């Protein structure tokens, strides 16, 4: 009972202290929220990039296209040769899969069903060729896969030439490397910014607590003479730090949602189109909500409690 009475008093004192130092509290919250927004934004951008890379991983498939003039026996022979090669290679995970030209056309129509021009390509006017699909583990192994597959005679790899041009492959790898480089840069910049802002927010929250201690100097002294325990004197300040942290987490979560829905998705979508030349999937905010909420709350509590503890140790002699 006594515990709950004290807890109620600490919470009430914490809110009073926040009201008393509202300017500094606001500054603390703004800085902490900025810190969380940076963390959240970088997390969302990186996660979306990674998720789309996972879908690129699904494209870790090359098509060995077969001339239209090939007889079924020749097609079967090519299949057997490819299977033998694939089974001997550590980077190729599955046996080649045959996809007929009709199947390609069907997929084409599914992909472009909203385009009127796609209707021109029908059974007799099917420009697509049958192929063997070869799946490999990493997108970065594409050069090696092409060089292995190219050893087979009588096939054409993409575009009618004997082999895929070196330029095509290197441009694919370049895209992959560029995005990985962007991801690394984002990580580095994000972490650096976050560390700087966390340190700054610790400093500001610490000063807010210090102001609270100064404002309540007489009260604290009298509390000591009345027999207040260390915990009893310190608890309202800790509560203040926790409130600042939690309030910041809540505000940051709301702003992050708005930012994601109205701004970030637009930016990511347009930049992704520029990079990959295609559509990119933006995951819904709700998918990230639990992780973001947990991260913001932990970060808020961490900053609030640490700053408070340091400030109390430095300025409050009990």
């Amino acid at each position: 009972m006594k515990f709950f009475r004290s807890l109620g008093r600490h919470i009430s004192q914490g809110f009073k202290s926040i009201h008393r130092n509202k300017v500094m509290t606001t500054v603390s919250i703004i800085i902490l929220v900025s810190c969380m927004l940076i963390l959240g934004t970088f997390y969302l951008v990186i996660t979306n990039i990674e998720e789309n890379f996972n879908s690129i991983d699904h494209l870790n498939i090359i098509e060995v296209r077969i001339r239209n003039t090939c007889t079924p026996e020749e097609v079967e022979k090519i299949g057997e040769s490819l299977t033998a090669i694939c089974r001997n290679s550590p980077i190729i995970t599955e046996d080649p899969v045959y996809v007929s030209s009709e199947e390609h056309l069907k997929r084409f129509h599914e992909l472009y069903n909203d385009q009127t021009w796609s209707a021109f390509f029908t059974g007799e006017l099917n420009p697509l060729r049958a192929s063997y699909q070869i799946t490999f583990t990493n997108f970065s192994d594409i050069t090696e896969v092409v060089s292995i597959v190219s050893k087979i005679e009588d096939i054409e790899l993409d575009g009618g030439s004997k082999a895929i041009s070196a330029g095509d492959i290197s441009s694919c790898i370049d895209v992959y490397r560029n995005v990985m480089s962007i991801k690394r840069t984002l990580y580095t910049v994000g972490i650096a910014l976050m560390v700087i802002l966390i340190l700054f927010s610790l400093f500001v929250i610490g000063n807010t607590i210090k102001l609270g201690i100064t404002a309540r100097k007489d009260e604290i002294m009298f509390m000591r003479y009345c027999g207040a325990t260390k915990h009893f004197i310190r608890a309202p300040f800790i509560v203040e730090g926790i409130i600042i942290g939690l309030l910041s987490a809540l505000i940051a979560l709301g702003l992050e949602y708005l930012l994601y829905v109205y701004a970030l998705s637009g930016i990511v979508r347009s930049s992704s189109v520029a990079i990959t030349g295609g559509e990119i999937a933006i995951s819904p905010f709700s998918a990230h909500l639990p992780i973001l909420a947990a991260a913001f709350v932990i970060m808020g509590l961490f900053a609030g409690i640490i700053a408070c503890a340091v400030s109390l140790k430095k300025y409050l002699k009990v």
Partner: protein
Amino acid sequence: MAYPDGTVALRDVSLKIDDGEFVFIVGASGAGKTTLTKLLLCEERVSSGILEVNSFHLEKMRSFRIPYLRRTMGVVFQDFRLFPNKTVYENVAFPMQVIGESGKRIRNTVTYFLDQVGLGDKAGSFPHQLSGGEQQRVAFVRAMVNNPKLIIADEPTGSIDNDLRDGLMDMLLQANRSGKKTVIVVTHDTDLLYRYRKRTIQLHKGRLVSDQIGFEGYAIPANGGENA
């Protein structure tokens, strides 16, 4: 008792104050009165020797026990030190809230004490709305509200007129006589000492130079107390 910088504030002081006594501690500035008060409140620790207050052995007491020692004491300050932003009721209730008393007990006790000193109708007033005498009574009640065994009045008459001084002394004497409280008044107000003939402990340059009933002037030894 020596401070970390090497200053010896109290030396060879040996005294016993029994339960229910009324004692003045006097001395000029630098005599060691403040240090003695700090020792009693366990704000400072004795560097050597033994100090027992209200059955707490202060020389070896662990820090977490200090609040429990202080709960057996009430302190009356020179300038009252009422909280200006709290009402009379809140000021008096504060020490009880600090030690976690229940709301009901706080209400009953505060109301009782305020009625006792004639401030029942001023419970909702703020300190600046009270006269000096009323503020003094609030400060006294605030020191009494947790039912302390020992009351320490630190220079209680330093900044008040004679009427207020007499009023405060009456309250302290009443607490001593009727409430069986031990009262220690730390002062350099000689008028007070002449007027109220009580046990008077005199300090000079950190040494105990006199311990007697009544006051007959400062007993400063010829050598300044160095070898007293």
